[in-house]
């Protein structure tokens, strides 16, 4: 299968760089898969699981905040947080959800509250998906 260069970048470091066959990205308007030769495309991310398929077993990472850019040179995902699922502890996720809940409660104006509420829901659904995934693999 054709491969293409893929980079996953967080503000603190380059998390992943290499040739892959497919990447599944949690986009703001739904998950999408990127294969080699995708049309130029930019999408923001929702919190969720990013799957990298290449040689060997697919790698899964939890990402939140940022965007994905596909162009003829390859795919770049910029994520504020990118943690391999194996290193992600349930407490971490629970803390993020708690923080998000507090943010919702602190929101003073309606539009901010709505956007934070949406973020919280995305986060909870990502957490549920990760938990289900963990049960299957064990």
């Amino acid at each position, binding site marked *: 299968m054709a491969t293409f260069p893929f*980079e996953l*970048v*967080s*503000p*603190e*470091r*380059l998390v992943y760089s290499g040739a892959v066959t497919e990447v599944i990205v949690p*986009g*703001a*308007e739904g998950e999408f898969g990127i294969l080699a030769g995708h*049309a*130029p*495309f*930019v*999408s*923001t991310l929702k919190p969720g699981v990013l799957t990298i398929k290449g040689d060997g077993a697919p790698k899964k990472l939890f990402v939140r*905040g*940022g*965007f994905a*850019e596909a*162009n*003829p040179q390859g795919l*770049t995902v*910029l994520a*504020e947080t990118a943690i391999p699922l194996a290193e992600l502890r349930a407490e971490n996720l629970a803390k993020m959800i708690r923080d998000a809940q507090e943010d919702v409660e602190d929101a003073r104006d309606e539009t901010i509250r709505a956007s934070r509420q949406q973020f919280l829901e995305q986060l909870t659904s990502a957490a549920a998906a990760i938990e289900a995934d963990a049960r299957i693999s064990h």
Partner: protein
Amino acid sequence: MASLKDLRNRIASVKATQKITKAMQMVAAAKLRRAQQAAEAARPYAVRMESVLGNIAGTISGGPDAPLLLTGTGKDQTHLLLVLTAERGLCGAFNSSIVRLARERALSLMAQGKTVKIFCVGRKGHDALRRQFEKQIVEVVELRTSKGGVSFADAQKIADKIGAMFAAGEFDVATQFFSRFQSVISQTPTAQQLIPATFAAPSAAVTGAEAVYEYEPGEAEILADLLPRNLAVQVFKALLENGASEQGARMSAMDNATRNAGDMIKKQTLTYNRTRQAMITKELIEIISGAEAL
């Protein structure tokens, strides 16, 4: 004339100081390497962010519904100065040169009748500005992260505060002051405008004819989502540059201090030896003249 004991004590104290400055220099060198790595690791993110934002901003900035973070409020009456300095001193002119640049800007803006607000990050900058600009300082953030350097979460917190202030209409233009790292011996204090955001015009190689992007959701939504993130990225980048500059400045300051201490020890040892020799000679003369008198 100081006694021999005094001289001995003084030499011992200078030697102790030299050991400390030497140790601080070595610590700074180790930290500098780490700070430089951190700055390098953060570069791809900032570069990508800028190129995508540049692309989108280019197509949308003319529109009437362009976000305020990009276009500004249309006024420049109230200025927010974000002054990024270190938590600790003993790093040469690092803190004072950033503060000086910020102070000059603040004074010139005030002379033009503008309102100035100051946001201090780092204890040293706050200490230096507090006396002169007590009324203008609106926020102080201290970075108490001694190990591991600054994290993105710190930058995010600062950017969130600025974003909230901007949304509340508390200022029109934001500028950050930090020190750009050039080399161990040269750091340039720099002012960079944050709001309204400025992007280098995307180069032709990036925007080439083939790069007609499809956006999901729309361009405006992406821009609204990314601009606050870009603020955090810019602050983070400045903090990292500052971290490297601080360690570089400390390293060369401590190198100087160690060398000065060495010179001082050499001079004082010479005085000590001369004084000792003079005393021995004096005692000998006393003994001889005493013996002759008999």
